[in-house]
């Protein structure tokens, strides 16, 4: 047995290149699986970090309400006297707005947190990149790196801030890394840490923000209820909801998972091809072993175990490669999501185990067929070197290919716009890819025959065209190439569609300026309406919250006054929802989106249990609109209901339409409302800031597909080398009967160009077919989309692909230069 294993292993490693190709293909598959699993874990950590950046390690927190007339300070004595025994800690902070205004154009409101630094570090540890908090007293402050870079703050700088209508000079003693509270500073609007006593003195109170850690975590739920009941004048909030974290994680991870599936398909194909070649070359040794009495079963077991070992090697190598893939993903997010770019990559034994396990399964399953084919070959045929496939039997698999591609074109419009429809779309797309494989030989044979019969072609070119339909390795190359083109072009088109749609959604908005005021009371709004150039405005309340009875979230719960909001932020199907809009305030009614309708299987009249701060309030669905704002996780309720539920009074955003020069109107607003303006951004600035991020994310995801192309090219090179080796004798022969070297080269070049052109042609044809299923595949998650084929990318791929095939053809050409006619044709 040992001898047999040794002989087989030796024969495997004699073909180093081939074996390396198999291991590399396995490693790429494993790398993608590893990267996906680790990325999922990393994203979950990132989402968790983001969600706890405010709450830290506390279990609950209490804050005053941001409503006119609400209590300004928390009665901490009452709180501690009644509940103090339940708390491990109750850290009392002050939170207030501080205005930084070096100029009218550079006005910015920070949220200032007054805290005892030891207590702060305990609840939400600080990571300073510069400075220290040794002397935490007086007017010393800590700022975050993001705004330090924005305003060129350095340790030691003195910054003038306006608090409570007076100006104060603060000294920067530390700059924090974007971690903890400062994790998403740019998105949150910026934080400044100051000594608690200083802020208490400036604002005349003890604390308006208390973080609580419980001695017994199991009491969290009941304590939340009791505190909400006993302190209705304040807001009581939880830390994080795990199910919501999972839902948010999926949104990041799902596109990468889709990419991985398609690339895995490619890798499977290549592994199978490589294994087929490897096993074919081992026919002689297997024949010898069989002829001396080794049973089929024994050889099968050894070869399957051998492929499993290759899977382990490839899997482990893949984990190492996977770390590189992870860094690539993180790097892709650097300019898009700073928090993710800064999150530590998380992986462990589980991810390594999954990657290696998957590699072993993939390798073993793909190797089984070639192994069985090998061991089933009669010994006599092996010894007599008669391994030809029986001719005469026609292959009708191409009909299945036609059926699968046709289905992908005609079935999608009949699929429902929900999760099942999405699954159906995915199946149709995969079916089209699978159907392409048997269709390629059928079409190649007919096309090459038709072109080869053209009278003006020289014989070497005609032979080249003949060879691509008769040689298995060359045909395999066309299949590989067309599948690779189809996969990459489809993925790029898919994400082009989603990305373009999202960018179009930004552009579709009808407002010119978006404004946030300190207080959007009647006086401020009256002033705004008088500003020259403000033709129309509509306020809205917006927050991110959970839908508790569906374990998902609303990216935007939007409180609106009426239809004016939609005049400035258009949505589709508005006409179908006029009545729902008119009655939005008639009860606890909510209009949501077709995306959520499809995802959650919602219908009119269903209830959404929405989280409003510390309360959970049921809302009845009265309409569905078409939008992919907030990736479709949006709910519209009346402003009154929002104010009542959230306990707020000021609009989060006011959208403004003008018929005049936008910059001029912006300046008019700043001059009129001055320090009341917390944030003002034009529509163009908003598009610029976000569109690039969207495109960057999708570019990162679709670049996964280029892994498939890379592996495909390696497979093609290998096939070309093998086909050369298989046909050496033929090449020597045609040279013997008078084909010149140039003629032979022309023949080889013809083969390569034909493979390139056909591969590109079939791949593009398949993409056009597969794109029919894009709307139904993404609709349930993304809303209605218009397919945007990646025409530019496909054209570039086509040109590069054909040039690459031409370049690769020099591999057999160079080998043919060294071909010894005599050694090749002599039959020893």
């Amino acid at each position: 047995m040992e001898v047999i294993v040794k002989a087989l292993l030796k024969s495997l490693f004699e073909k180093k290149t081939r074996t390396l190709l198999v291991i590399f293909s396995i490693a790429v598959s494993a790398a993608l699986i590893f990267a996906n699993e680790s990325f999922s874990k990393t994203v979950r950590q990132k989402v968790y970090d983001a969600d706890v950046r405010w709450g830290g390690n506390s279990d609950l927190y209490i804050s005053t309400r941001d409503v006119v007339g609400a209590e300004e300070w928390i009665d901490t004595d009452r709180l501690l006297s009644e509940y103090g025994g339940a708390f491990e800690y109750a850290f009392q902070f002050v939170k207030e707005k501080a205005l930084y205004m070096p100029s009218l154009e550079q006005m910015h409101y920070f949220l200032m947190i007054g805290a005892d630094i030891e207590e702060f570090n305990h609840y939400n540890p600080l990571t300073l990149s510069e400075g220290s908090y040794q002397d935490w007293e007086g007017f010393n402050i800590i700022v975050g790196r993001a705004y330090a870079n924005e305003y060129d703050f350095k340790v030691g700088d003195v910054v003038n801030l306006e608090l409570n209508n007076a100006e104060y000079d603060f000294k920067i003693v530390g700059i924090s890394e974007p971690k903890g509270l400062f994790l998403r500073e740019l998105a949150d609007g910026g934080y400044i840490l100051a000594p608690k006593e200083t802020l208490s003195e400036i604002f005349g109170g003890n604390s308006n923000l208390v973080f609580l850690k419980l001695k017994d975590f199991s009491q969290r739920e009941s304590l939340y209820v009791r505190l909400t009941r006993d302190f209705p004048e304040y807001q009581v909030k939880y830390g994080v909801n795990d199910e919501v974290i999972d839902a948010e994680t999926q949104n990041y991870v799902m596109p990468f998972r889709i990419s991985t599936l398609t690339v895995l398909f490619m890798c499977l194909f290549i592994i199978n091809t490589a294994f087929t070649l490897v096993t074919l070359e081992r026919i002689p040794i297997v024949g010898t072993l069989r002829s001396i009495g080794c049973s089929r079963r024994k050889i099968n077991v050894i070869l399957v175990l051998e492929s499993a070992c290759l899977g382990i090697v490839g899997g482990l190598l893949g984990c190492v490669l996977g770390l590189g893939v992870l860094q690539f993903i993180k790097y892709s997010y650097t300019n898009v999501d700073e928090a993710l770019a800064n999150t530590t990559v998380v992986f462990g034994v589980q991810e390594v185990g999954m990657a290696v396990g998957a590699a072993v399964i993939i390798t073993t399953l793909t190797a089984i067929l070639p192994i069985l084919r090998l061991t089933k070959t009669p010994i006599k045929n092996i010894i007599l070197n008669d391994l030809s496939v029986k001719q005469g039997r026609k292959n009708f698999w191409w009909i299945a290919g036609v059926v699968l591609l046709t289905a992908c074109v005609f079935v999608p419009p009949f699929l429902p716009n929900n999760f099942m429809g999405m699954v159906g779309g995915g199946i149709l797309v995969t079916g089209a890819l699978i159907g392409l494989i048997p269709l390629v030989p059928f079409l190649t044979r007919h096309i090459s025959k038709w072109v080869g019969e053209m009278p003006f072609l020289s014989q070497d070119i005609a032979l080249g065209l003949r060879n691509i339909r008769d040689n298995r390795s060359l045909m395999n190359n066309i299949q590989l190439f067309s599948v690779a083109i189809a996969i990459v072009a489809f993925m790029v088109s898919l994400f082009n569609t989603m990305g373009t749609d999202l960018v179009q959604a930004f552009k579709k908005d009808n407002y010119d300026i978006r404004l946030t005021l300190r207080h959007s009371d009647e006086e401020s709004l009256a002033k705004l309406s008088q500003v020259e150039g403000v033709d129309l405005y509509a306020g809205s309340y917006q927050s991110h919250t959970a839908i508790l009875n569906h374990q998902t979230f609303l990216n935007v719960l939007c409180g609106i006054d009426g239809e004016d909001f939609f005049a400035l932020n258009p949505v589709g199907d508005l006409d179908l929802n006029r009545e729902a809009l008119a009655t939005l305030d008639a009860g606890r009614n909510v209009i949501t989106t077709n995306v959520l309708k499809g995802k959650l299987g919602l219908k009119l009249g269903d209830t959404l249990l929405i989280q409003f701060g510390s309360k959970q309030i049921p809302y009845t669905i009265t309409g569905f609109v078409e939008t992919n704002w907030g990736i479709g996780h949006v709910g519209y309720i009346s402003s009154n209901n929002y104010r009542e539920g959230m306990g707020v009074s000021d609009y989060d955003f006011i959208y403004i339409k003008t018929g005049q020069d936008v910059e001029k109107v912006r300046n008019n607003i700043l001059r009129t409302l001055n320090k009341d303006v917390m944030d003002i951004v034009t529509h163009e600035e908003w598009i610029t800031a976000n569109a690039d991020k969207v495109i960057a994310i999708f570019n990162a995801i679709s670049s996964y597909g280029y892994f498939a192309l890379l592996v495909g090219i390696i497979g093609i090179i290998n096939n070309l080398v093998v086909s050369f080796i298989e046909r050496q004798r033929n090449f020597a022969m045609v040279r013997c009967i008078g084909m010149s070297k140039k003629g032979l080269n022309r023949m080889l070049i013809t083969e390569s160009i034909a493979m390139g052109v056909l591969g590109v042609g079939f791949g593009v044809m398949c993409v056009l077919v597969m794109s029919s299923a894009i709307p139904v595949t993404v609709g349930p998650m993304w809303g209605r989309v218009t397919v945007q084929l990646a025409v530019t990318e496909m054209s570039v791929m086509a040109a590069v692909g054909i040039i690459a095939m031409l370049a690769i053809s020099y591999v057999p050409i160079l080998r043919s230069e060294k071909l010894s006619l005599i050694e090749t044709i002599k039959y020893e």
Partner: protein
Amino acid sequence: MDKMIEVHNVYKSFQLADSTVEVLKNVDLEVEKGEFISIMGPSGSGKSTLLYLMGGLDKASAGTICVNGVEMQSLDDETESRMRRNDIGFVFQAYNLIDNLTLEENILLPALLEGKKKKDVIKKAEELMETVGILGRRNHTPKELSGGEQQRTAIARALINDPAVLFADEPIGNLDSKTGKEILELLRKINKAKDITILMVTHSEESTQYGKRIIRLKDGEVVVAPQT
């Protein structure tokens, strides 16, 4: 008579690892036009090597070889290839047909490579197929034929461009004796009918009866090359 082949002071050696192996040493011979020569010798005597040198499939280490008045050593690839299409025909032990072409296409190939149109040479091909006895199998591929039929096809292919010389390397080595005799008889018939010079490497003494002269090689040297 005209000299068809002249070989003077030819040496051929191969490099194997650290040593040099001399396969042919100081070979001298001449072949007249229309002769049917058998080249014999034990394994490793250099007979196939000599045949391939004369056929332009390899270059001698030293010496000169002229075929049909053309000095073979100094030819470029294009000229050599043209010679192999038009002046020289090869028949191999393993037939060496192209598997994915039909018999007819295999036979036509040298003519098509020469740039001739199929319609101009198909009649000739049919005549050759008739001569060698495979006309009824013209649309079959090599895999569907017996060894004898494949070798007949190879002979027909070698003759399509009316070569001056036909080189045959153990043409009946893979055939049974009856078929082998048929092939040898065919070669004799072609030699007589078309006055084509034939050089045939063979192990079989019996085969030499079909030729006019025997050249014997031993250890890379010509032992006996009697004139007819």
